[in-house]
């Protein structure tokens, strides 16, 4: 809802300070008590190429980029066409650029946006040690309505240790920017600064949130191999885990990392790894070992463009297939999906809890757009869900590791437990854990491993359900925010819609979803994949009402699905 938010794109060559400007603006908005979201984009250069920061600020929580940008701030025009598809502009948009940067390229101006050229480089000359990006920060703060005080506080925090002169130069730059902004008529853009409230706000990326959720859930052992766009989970965990008595091992590859966490979990420590598609592919054999041996592990998979190496730095929801069905044999496991940056925390925490409780392999799906974006959110409430593995006590007698139980969960012996000595096995086995190829044992254990998942009551977290109406939008993961915003806008227009975002993908909660879909006439499925992976999954696992019309809005990455596109879809159907 553009009226309530402001969206800003900042672009420039490497070294222009695009990210610093964007990050500072986000921080300042947070200090002012607003919410916000910042995503990043850059060219193919490893370092130092053109970069873009995309911000959306609002006094209300913000889940995804808006349909359009109010402001494009271009430090220069270097390779800006690379980003043009990501920066929808229109006649109400303002393009601000440095007068020294030359003519704005056609791909930007053809939108009809108002072009404001300002003497940035010239101005900065008059500020000793000043940098253009601080002027930009000042302009953008003024434009968006972020109070000067908040910007100052951020600059103070960031530059305190750089010395007085640097600080003064930056502040002067920001001030100059504020002044310059007056020349632009900004009333249509700027938000009311009074909307904010400063209570317990967090600034966090989805990857940090996943790491934090892991620790809250009780994870104390992590082994992993770096991969874009999951690495930040590990980079956050490494120094933090050790503070709470855990540890992280950088493994030689993903085969090692997943087997290491099986070892750590066998040793009684809730264990986790994080990766992305190519790494997940390498892990599936051992995930099957976790399933067969009933050794709980959690894998956070941060999706990127596929197939193969694909588009490592961009988002896509195309690892759904492999997460659900990528294991050989009949291998029931858990797949959950985080549907917002904040939810990366709570879904990871919940998944650790489930994995431990059910002695199951569990995959949390996140993606690049959640993991590598930073949001200002409310401090997430702690669900209190932690690892609670069912174990046997020291001195246990006649222990059967894979005993048949009504719940399907068999109490586990942790090394150190006398009488519990057993051998975990990936071969099919008897209740005692001895290899067996007997049909009876196979069926008993297959039933047990299935039962522990299907009989468990997963509670309300299986999905987020919002609104009412007989047009239902079903979606998941990062497509949730645009879908939710589209539904909200539709409702504002009088079109009643219901939004269902599945958090628990498998075991499928068929009766729950089917219950919600009774009598529904229109189903819109929204996903960011090329081959309709989510749609196929829904068909396979749920009886969608026969008489409902089902439409699929799907598109692969890298471009985000925007709320307005979905709104059009909904409108055109009503």
């Amino acid at each position, binding site marked *: 809802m553009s009226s309530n938010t402001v969206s800003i794109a900042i672009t420039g060559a490497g070294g222009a300070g695009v990210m610093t400007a964007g990050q500072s603006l986000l921080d300042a908005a947070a*200090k002012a008590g607003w919410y916000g979201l910042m995503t990043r984009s850059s060219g193919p250069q490893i370092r130092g190429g053109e970069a873009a920061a995309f911000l959306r600020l609002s006094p209300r929580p913000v889940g995804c980029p808006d349909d359009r940008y109010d402001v494009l701030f271009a430090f220069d025009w270097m390779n800006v066409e690379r980003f043009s598809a990501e920066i929808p502009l229109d006649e109400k948009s303002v393009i601000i650029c440095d007068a020294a940067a030359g003519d704005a390229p056609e791909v930007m101006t053809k939108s009809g946006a108002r072009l404001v050229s300002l003497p940035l480089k010239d101005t900065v000359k008059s500020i000793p040690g000043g940098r253009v990006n601080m002027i930009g920060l000042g302009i953008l703060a003024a434009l968006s309505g972020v109070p000067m005080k908040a910007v100052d506080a951020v600059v103070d925090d960031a530059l305190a240790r750089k010395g007085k002169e640097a600080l003064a130069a930056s502040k002067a730059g920001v001030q100059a920017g504020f002044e310059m902004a007056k020349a632009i008529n900004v009333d249509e853009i700027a938000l009311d600064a009074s909307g904010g409230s400063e209570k317990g706000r967090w600034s966090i990326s989805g990857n940090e949130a996943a790491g934090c959720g892991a620790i809250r859930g009780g994870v104390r052992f992590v*082994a992993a191999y770096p991969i874009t766009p999951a690495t930040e989970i590990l980079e956050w965990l490494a120094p933090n885990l*050790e503070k709470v008595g855990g540890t992280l091992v950088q493994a030689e590859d993903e085969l090692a990392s997943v*087997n290491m966490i099986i*070892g750590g979990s066998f040793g009684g420590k809730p264990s986790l790894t994080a990766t992305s598609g190519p790494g997940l592919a390498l892990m599936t054999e051992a995930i099957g070992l976790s399933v067969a041996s009933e050794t709980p592990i959690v894998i956070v998979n941060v999706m990127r463009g596929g197939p193969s190496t694909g588009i490592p730095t961009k988002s896509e929801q195309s690892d759904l297939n492999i997460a659900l069905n990528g294991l050989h044999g009949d291998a029931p496991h858990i797949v959950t999906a985080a549907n917002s940056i904040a939810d990366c925390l709570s879904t990871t925490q919940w998944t650790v809890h489930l994995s431990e409780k059910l002695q199951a392999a569990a995959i949390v799906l996140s993606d690049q757009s959640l993991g590598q974006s930073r949001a200002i959110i409310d401090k997430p409430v702690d669900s209190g869900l932690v690892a609670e593995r069912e174990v046997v006590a020291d001195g246990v007698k006649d222990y059967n590791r894979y005993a048949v139980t009504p719940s399907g969960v068999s109490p586990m*012996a942790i090394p150190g437990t*006398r009488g519990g*000595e057993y*051998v975990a096995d990936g071969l099919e086995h008897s209740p005692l854990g001895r*290899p067996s190829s007997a049909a009876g044992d196979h069926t008993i254990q297959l039933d047990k491993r299935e039962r522990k998942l299907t009989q468990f009551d997963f509670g309300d977290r299986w999905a987020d359900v919002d609104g009412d109406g007989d047009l239902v939008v079903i979606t998941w993961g990062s497509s949730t925010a645009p879908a939710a915003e589209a539904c909200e806008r539709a409702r504002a227009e009088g079109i009643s819609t219901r939004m269902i975002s599945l958090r628990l993908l498998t075991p499928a909660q068929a009766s729950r979803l089917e219950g919600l879909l009774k009598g529904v006439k229109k189903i819109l499925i929204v996903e960011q994949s090329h081959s309709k992976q989510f749609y196929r999954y829904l068909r396979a696992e749920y009886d969608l009402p026969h008489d409902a019309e089902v439409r699929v809005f799907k598109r692969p990455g890298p471009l985000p699905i925007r709320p307005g596109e979905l709104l059009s879809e909904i409108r055109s159907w009503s």
Partner: protein
Amino acid sequence: MEASAARAIPAKDYKSDYKPVWCPGCGDFSVLSSITKAFAELGLPREETAVISGIGCSSRIPAYTSVYGFHGVHGRALALATGLKVARPELTVVATGGDGDGFSIGGNHFLHAARRNADITYVVMDNQVYGMTKGQASPTTSPDWEKSKLTPHGTGVSPFQPLAIALASGANYIARGFSGDPNGVARLIAEAIQHPGFSLVQVLSPCVTFRPEQRDWKEITREATVPYTDDTGRAARRLMTDDGFNTGVLFKGNRPIYQPSLEQSSTTEDLERAFQV
């Protein structure tokens, strides 16, 4: 560890009552005995000990012991063992397996476990063949062995030198034994467990079914006449020119051990403060 109480466990009590699937005469029977003897000699509490393996005839060994164990997937024993050891440093962790499991599919973990040098003992039952899958060449098979249908003219490839590779990778204790000498092997394993860091014990363990000619190993193996060294340069030269049948300890080093501390210094709330605006 309550040493005296524990020491009371006889070797046979480290064996389970589960009958091995091995062929009669397989060298692995004797390696199983050596492992349990070593455990008994060290008086390891059963519940504080774990045997981790991959897949292969030799990798079946955990189920035949009475300690904790993990029979994982093919080639990944050392990774699993590393995770266990790092997460639970107080346990004695012994990884076991075959030449195929350890040096073919598991080669990368072999390199990196040796290099990382966590306090793990790795016992490899080397029979120069894939027994479990019915007789294909393994990395240690000589190039002219023509009995596998997969390589009907022999592999034509020089054998893998596990000890030289272990040394170059960073292993801290390197020994070779022969399954025909179970007491000798037991001593090597016990010492390997006691020596800090990554210890490799290669046990020449005949596959009587697919490599019946290995029964001759009892004639060929001999105790090494040169004592072990702690000098990596000298050890490298020696292992590169070794014929593969010298038994005993061949290298003992003092390389740094990998074991991150697991002490807690903060609470989750402390960590979370960093997110506050």
